[in-house]
């Protein structure tokens, strides 16, 4: 993690120090701004990462940000992978698909892509595929929570960029 714990990752990636009006607007919703940051830490750097390492979480987040062409988030999550295992950079690339991975990772990547871009298509069968690939109930909730948080972050960043640039 390159940012200090005190730095708000969204303010930083959008360069809001140069946009004091928007930074002040975010502060009017200071509680939710803070909880957005603590939710980021819980999703990406939890005290108990268990079966999803910090590197894997950042790589999956970079993949989702890339799927949505969210440049600032891609840069942020890619930076977290600097110096990490090159396999994580491959995971961050949506061009890396099911055929390139073992059964567990392949199921995870397929689920990440589906629920990011087309959540309405998800059914019980998709959760059953994760279970069949060896994910336990907590793993499935962990993965769902990471996907859900990063997609929230993509929308918040997109909306704030709209306010910043207009």
């Amino acid at each position, binding site marked *: 993690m390159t940012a200090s714990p005190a730095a708000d990752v969204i303010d930083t990636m959008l360069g809001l120090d140069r946009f004091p009006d928007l930074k002040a607007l975010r502060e009017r919703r200071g509680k939710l701004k803070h909880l957005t940051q603590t939710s980021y830490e819980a999703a990406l750097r939890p005290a108990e990462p268990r079966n999803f390492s910090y590197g894997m979480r950042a790589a999956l987040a970079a993949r989702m940000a890339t799927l949505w062409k969210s440049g600032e988030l891609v840069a942020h999550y890619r930076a977290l992978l600097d110096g990490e295992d090159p396999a994580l950079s491959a995971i961050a690339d949506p061009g890396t698909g099911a055929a390139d991975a073992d059964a567990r990772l392949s199921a995870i990547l397929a689920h990440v892509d589906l629920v990011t871009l087309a959540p309405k298509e998800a059914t019980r069968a998709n959760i059953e595929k994760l279970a069949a690939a060896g994910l336990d109930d907590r793993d499935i909730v962990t993965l769902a929570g990471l996907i859900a948080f990063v997609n929230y972050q993509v929308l918040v960043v997109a909306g704030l960029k709209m*306010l910043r640039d207009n």
Partner: protein
Amino acid sequence: MSDAVHEFTVEALDWKPYVRPVDLDTATPEQLDALKVTPSNKKVSAYVLVLANEAETLRERTPLFNDIMYSEGGLSRGGREIGALAASFVNHCIYCAAVHAARYIQLEKRPEVVEEIYRNGLDADLPEFEQALFNFGVDLTAHPDNVGTYQFYHLRETGLDDLEILDLIHSVAIFGWANRLMHTLGEPHRQE
């Protein structure tokens, strides 16, 4: 499982998970702490008990959700429910839509707005203010990489100030989160 509901409805629904919820009798202190901040201590929903599998995330998420939907000032409570509904229609979260349709009607006493959304979905023809909120929610949910000047000026022309727009962004975004949990980790059923 034949009573699972796969079409939009305004009737009250139950939600049944695909994964095991936390059992309150065997929950860890951290899970119990995360569960405490939900509105009701006595009857915790299956949904929240599923999320308690990841207590650290749930502990932040519950107050975040509540602040986004219920904070003072800015966009009206009903306006935020329109943002929630727009996201839930794009993402096809039937349970989320039913809950927030009911909440909108309860808050605004304008069932005709919800009826039009249920009748025509993403093509709903709404009064100007609600239309602006709804269109923005649909655009941000479906194409977050493509919101910009057009969406901004449409909201401005409708009279929204900066704080109202910020509140709308958050209400849509938190349903980008909620829909991806509720619609993927379980499914709605008719109440027995």
